[in-house]
């Protein structure tokens, strides 16, 4: 008989658990940290490779989640106060930030996985799954003396994308399966950052806190989803299994995610009121938020390729390559509309902000060894991922570099058809020294002086969101992930 206390222990683990994030948005370990991949024949195939659903036998249910804790530190280079350029007389203390992702909240959080499906008569596999392929969460902590060195790029952000997808696989032949996953992507966002309204004003000085307007932008409830498709193929011959899949960026919008920001507030610069904290643009919350915002950005498409070699009855080795097409992520565009009367929004503080991204494609390489018996299995994975953010583009809102991640996972049958797997991963990013930052605080004034001429480099920088305070400095990131996944095979 199933031990009730064991069940409670499992549930307790599930409710404190979370996923591993890679790249600036990507969750590299959807479902678990140690066993899933393009050659896997279980419900996680909805994400990894829908063709893998064709390998399932009978009904299956999976429920799991991960607890992920990210820590960063930002040691900014000094700036010249009048211009904001590096280096200069003003130094910054090292800033630190952290973020924890976990799935149990509403709207549903990231790093969870729920799937239900079945393999039908060695002909079809069908499944429904909910997971979070893209997510990020980070809050920068003010320093002991109250400074916020990273404020013009990030105060806090949480971007989540919950996927609800159906997968279908068919046997094209005895050794080949093909599959497809159409899905909906439900985004939510909350982003806080400051805008330097005196950028390039030598009198006020760059990065003068009294000239900082704070933008607090958030979605409200569940917004209209984007849709995507994934396709995959799986081939098995003897001891070798190969899997290949492609997951699209959001379709119908050229890869763009468009988010209405119905919880939007802008805090005016302190100097507008002669000092102290600036007032909110909409001061009376009881009458409702008078601002409406909209944010748009792109998500990457992903190619997955995996190969598994069954060395013998117990041992197998797997290699996985993921190609993340971040190259299209050029910028985040934020638009804000306010009351029809009055001129504060659009004159004293901007009604649009462009945050430069300029990402590049990244490769996620993994080598995995798994030892398996009928009752349990254990695996070790070493993951290496190239940076999606060129060093000069790194800023507090987009910290990325080459990452190394060892992980361990174990899986055991705990009661008849129920298996429980758990994994731990530690991610370490090689420190990133940005060198000369792509962000140029002098570009705003230079563009104004050029009359907004888009043929000039300064105005192109402003248009692309690079006319912001410098982000030059050294960035560190490390992350721990603990995941738990329960599989019930009926």
């Amino acid at each position, binding site marked *: 008989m199933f031990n009730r206390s064991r069940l409670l222990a499992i549930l307790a683990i599930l409710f404190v658990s979370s996923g591993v994030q890679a790249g600036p948005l990507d969750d590299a370990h959807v479902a678990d940290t140690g066993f899933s991949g393009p050659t896997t024949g279980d419900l996680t195939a909805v994400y990894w490779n829908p063709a893998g659903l064709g390998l399932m036998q009978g009904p299956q249910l999976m429920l799991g989640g991960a607890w992920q804790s990210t820590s960063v530190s930002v040691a900014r280079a000094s700036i010249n106060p009048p211009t904001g350029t590096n280096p200069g007389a003003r130094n910054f203390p090292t800033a630190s930030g952290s973020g924890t992702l976990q799935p149990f909240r509403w709207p549903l959080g990231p790093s969870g996985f729920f799937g239900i499906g079945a393999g039908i008569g060695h002909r079809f596999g069908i499944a429904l799954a909910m997971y979070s392929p893209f997510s990020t969460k980070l809050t920068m902590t003010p320093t002991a003396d109250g400074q916020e060195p990273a404020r013009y790029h990030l105060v806090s952000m949480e971007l989540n994308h919950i996927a609800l997808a159906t997968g279908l696989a068919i046997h094209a032949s005895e050794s080949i399966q093909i599959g497809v996953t159409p899905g909906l992507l439900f985004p939510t966002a909350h982003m806080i950052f400051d805008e330097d309204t005196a950028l390039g004003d030598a009198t006020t000085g760059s990065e003068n806190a009294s000239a900082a307007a704070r933008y607090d932008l958030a979605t409200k409830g569940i917004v209209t989803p984007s849709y995507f498709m994934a396709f995959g193929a799986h081939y098995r011959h003897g001891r070798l299994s190969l899997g290949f899949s492609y997951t699209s960026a959001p379709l119908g919008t050229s890869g763009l995610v*468009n988010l*209405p*920001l*119905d919880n939007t507030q802008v805090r005016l610069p302190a100097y507008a009121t002669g000092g102290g904290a600036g007032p909110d643009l909409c001061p009376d919350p009881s*009458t*409702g*938020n*008078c601002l*409406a*915002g*909209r944010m*748009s950005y792109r998500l990457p498409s992903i190619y997955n390729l995996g190969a598994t070699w069954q060395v013998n009855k117990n041992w197998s080795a797997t290699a996985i390559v993921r190609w993340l097409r971040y190259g299209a992520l050029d910028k985040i*565009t934020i*638009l*804000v*509309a*306010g*009351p*029809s*009367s*009055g*001129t504060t929004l659009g004159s004293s503080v901007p009604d*649009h902000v*462009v945050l430069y991204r300029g990402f590049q494609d990244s490769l996620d390489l993994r080598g995995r060894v798994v030892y398996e018996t009928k009752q349990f299995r254990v695996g070790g994975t070493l993951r290496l991922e190239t940076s999606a953010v060129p060093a000069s583009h790194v800023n507090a809102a987009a910290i990325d570099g080459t990452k190394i991640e060892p992980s361990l996972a174990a899986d055991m049958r705990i009661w008849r058809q129920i298996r429980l797997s758990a994994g731990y991963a530690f991610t370490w990013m090689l420190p990133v020294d940005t060198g000369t930052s792509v962000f140029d605080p002098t570009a705003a004034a230079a563009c104004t002086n*050029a*009359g*907004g*001429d*888009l*043929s000039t480099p300064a*105005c192109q920088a*402003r*248009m692309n969101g690079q006319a912001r305070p410098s982000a030059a400095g050294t960035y560190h990131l490390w992350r721990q992930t603990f995941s738990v996944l329960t599989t019930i095979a009926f």
Partner: protein
Amino acid sequence: MLLLVSCGEDQSLTYDLEAIQLARAPVTPGGTATGGLLAKVSTSAGIQPLLVDSAYPLNSLAPAGCAGGGAPGWTYTGNMDLRDGESAAAPVRASFDHVGLFDLCPGPAGDAATQPAGVMGGPLLSNFAVGFELPRGTDKPATMTLWPSFPGSDERLAQDGFVSLRFNLRGGGAAARGSGEPSLTLPNSRIVLAACAAPRAFSTSEPQEACAHGEVTLRASGQDLMLAVGTGEGPLILSQSAWQRIAVTMGLANDAGTAGDLYTPFSTAPTPARFLTVPRLAVFQDGTTDTSWGGPCAELARARRVEWALANQAAGACFQPCDASGGRAVSTHAYLELGGALDVAVISETSDVIRSINVDSPPKPQVDGIIGAGTLAGTRLRLDYAATPQGRVIAACEDGSTRDQCSTAPSCPGLSANGRTLCFGQPVPAWPPACK
């Protein structure tokens, strides 16, 4: 060969979300310069005016300017650089590259002296949410801002004093050319809205208007129209037949007004017109797909009765029976009311202007004319082509406007947000009963 003139597949649109200054053509020959919107564009003959016209069905630019005329009818894929200023070093404010263009000189805008080198027409504008600031006077410049979309739901914008008027784009169709030449397909790019012309004056302090069940249409004042929004035209342009209906309402003769010439991009030759004024115009959504739609003048009269009842509920006012359903007032439709003496140009049914704005495939209800930029002076206008599921015109009145000049009335009572209801700019703490 089928040629889509809206855009090339590899068109590139470069813009920076900042305002671009525009000049304005005269509303009528010799009139105030608050008419058709004019940007500046690069040509090989220098920087020349470019008409920004949401009612124009194509994009055109004569690469060498229009001093010697273009080569009418030829299409090409080219670039359009909008500039601030007229010197060769004038700043580039937006670039549209690899865009499908006609090498075509449009007609003069406003008067014979204002000759644009081309038109940034509906097919190009419809890639954006286009914001226009259209001051009532000439002391402040008009501006155009290109955004990818405009934020805010209709309800949220209503709380902020905007009205959202939904539309489905019209104007698509095949343009036949000479024998043996390729046919052209024009995309839907024209905004057409319903309007009530010359309704009676209204005040919440006037006596209550009675309206029994079934009398909604009977109580309407003014004339129902379907009008295109044309930022490149000056006055309110009306077909002769539309004017005849309005003339009856206003008690004027069919041939009232002063004879003159109307200059629009639709025709290189001036269009004979009669110029006069109407007192006010209420602009509504394109209501053709709305089952609760009673027509613009009936909807205006209903909205005014509901506003009157809300304004006078302290004195025991009630909703009229024709405006009530289940004991509550029915929802009114959002509208923008423009007032003052609005310049009108009445032109022939067979003129190029009226024929052009009625090109539709498949055919759609008759368009009676164009709401020009001069009519819209004193407003902040957003042509949000990108909104879904329908595009929307978002409008607000210029700061300092009086109700006689410009007013906005979002839908009532469909504005519940954060537990409160706004109608006609005022919170509604309680609802008056329906009259017995």
